[in-house]
């Protein structure tokens, strides 16, 4: 079966203004997302990993235009989302739903769980009113919540339960793509496992396509087919899961993978400890953005910005692999 491309992101850039001069012109940017391109195929789970501040959430939000991208284009089934306006944009959001990181803040405290799930269905008028109610109950059950919770309010629930509500809400519109933006990172590890299992079950049942954004590689490893590693707004490496974990090319990916805890006390792998913190995206290092912390940094890394190149089924942005391609 040929894979069907449903989302194509080309050179996506999202810059946030930092400073303006007296005339209101922006003189300095934070490049939260810089020149990111990837394709998403139907039924695939794409993981995006990176440290805090690497711009991975901004990518997710830019896809839905919750944050306005500065440049580039996003094609959903051939339609360019970046050029859409008003009604059309609203309609496209029906097909791409998002689950947010903080289940405590992302639910309106004044709206009951049931209303919260019914609301988007009413807004897009895709079901009859009586069906909306039935569907909400069905969704509550599907995500493992009691039907009686329909009339309860968000503050009566735990984090895991709220995240289930968030999932039910996202499913309400029967979307094609779900963007899970750090959907499990604020939950306890045991609850994380439950929610991740729920994600996988739903994917198999409903044929969903996910973009799974997380800072925890072990979480991404469990759910994803292919993985994007991002650092300071740039893609460092893209590969499918097996390739990435068996043979990580980029030093950053190697460091991230070595940091995953292994549940076996006798088997302590060599851990690569990165020096320092992630630099401020407002003042990224020159040359390769990772050069300041890289344990394999060469002179060229500090001067020349490497391109993303194909190497052994991977795409990688590192000087170690630049020449070999030629």
């Amino acid at each position, binding site marked *: 079966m040929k894979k069907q491309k449903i989302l194509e992101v080309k050179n996506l850039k999202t810059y946030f203004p930092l400073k303006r001069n007296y005339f209101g012109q922006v003189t300095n940017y934070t490049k939260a997302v810089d020149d990111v391109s990837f394709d998403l195929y139907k039924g695939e789970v794409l993981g995006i990993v990176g440290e805090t501040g690497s711009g991975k959430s901004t990518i997710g939000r830019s896809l839905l235009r919750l944050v306005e991208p500065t440049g580039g284009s996003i094609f959903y089934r051939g339609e360019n989302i970046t050029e859409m306006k008003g009604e059309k944009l609203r*309609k496209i*959001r029906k097909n791409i*739903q998002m689950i947010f990181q903080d289940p405590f803040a*992302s639910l309106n405290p*004044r709206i009951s769980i049931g209303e919260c799930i019914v609301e988007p269905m009413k*807004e897009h008028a895709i079901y009859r009113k009586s069906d909306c109610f039935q569907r909400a109950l069905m969704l509550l059950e599907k995500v493992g919540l009691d039907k009686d919770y329909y009339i309860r309010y968000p*503050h009566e629930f735990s984090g895991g339960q709220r995240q289930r509500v968030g999932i039910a809400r996202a499913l309400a519109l029967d979307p094609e793509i779900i963007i899970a933006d750090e959907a499990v990172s604020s939950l306890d590890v045991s609850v994380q496992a439950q929610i991740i299992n729920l994600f996988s079950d739903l994917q198999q049942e409903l044929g969903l396509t996910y973009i799974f954004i997380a800072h925890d590689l072990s979480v991404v490893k469990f759910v994803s087919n292919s993985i994007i590693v991002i650092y300071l707004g740039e893609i460092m490496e893209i590969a499918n899961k097996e390739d990435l974990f068996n043979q990580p090319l980029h030093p950053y990916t190697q460091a991230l993978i070595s940091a995953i805890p292994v549940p076996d006390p006798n088997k302590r792998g060599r851990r690569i400890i990165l020096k320092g913190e992630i630099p401020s995206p407002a003042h990224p290092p020159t040359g390769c953005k990772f050069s300041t912390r890289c344990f394999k940094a060469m002179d060229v890394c500090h001067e020349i910005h490497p391109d993303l190149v194909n190497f052994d089924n991977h795409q990688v942005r590192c000087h170690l692999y630049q020449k070999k391609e030629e």
Partner: protein
Amino acid sequence: MFKVLQKQLIKGFITFFIAVSITFLILRLMPGDPTTMLIDPRMSEAARQRLLIDFGLDKPLITQYFLYLKQLFCGNLGVSFVFRTPVSEIIRERLPWTLALMGITQIITMSIGIPLGVMAAYKRGKLVDQIINALSILGMSIFIPWLGIMLLFFFGYILPIFPVGGGYTPGLSVSGWGYFLDVGMHFILPVLTLTIIYLANYTLFTRASMVDVLNEDYIRTARSKGMEEKRVIWNHGARNAMISTVTMAGMLFGRMVGGAVLTETVYAYPGVGRMIYDAVGQQDFPLLQGSFIVLALSVIVMNIVADLICAYLNPRMKME
């Protein structure tokens, strides 16, 4: 909900008791001897003593206080020194005017101020927001009597559209619709004055809480659902921002009493505010006492109402 009401009523009762006691004390500590007002100086000493005894002014302060409390809870507010009629009757005649004035001002300020605040918050930092902010601060800083006199001068004297004072035209023998219209015309300038002054409270307050709410994650959630922006702002934004605005509305009612005294004085409006102003000049203690108590009561009631609306608006409060 019942629990909230119970709690509010107890709180209201305590507040009322404190207000009543303070009213009593303040008036007794005021300089000046009410007997000189009440009693004709040409009156003989014996007659004066008899009157003092009649009014209970010869007893020690603490006895007076308990007598006052006892009378109060029987609904007796005493007899006015000046008018020689029961205070409750005078107030009953005046109170509807003031309540109508404040009530209508509240409705108008709310229905203009809240949308303005929401708009300012939505367009934060833009020109519209800056204009709304500047005008709000201007409105808040105006001195009521000055504004009243200016409005009177322009709309009563230069352009005589509105009557220059009072609550109705004396001697006008019309009834029904005609009377209603006459009262309405007298109403406009005082309401306008209070509206200009208090509008900013709603605008700035709603703006501030709306700015916070619009930054909440659930607003982003609503947008990501693909909701219309209008509905995101109103259904998810404004309804949450309203909780704190309603609390403020209750408190604003109290502050508006002060504004009403000044406004009613400027417009010779037959309300409680104007009466308080006159009663101070005449050292009419029972009347002052009575009006303070009644106003305190209405402010307390308004606050209870506001808290109940809040509880209704906020599901988290309902549970407690």
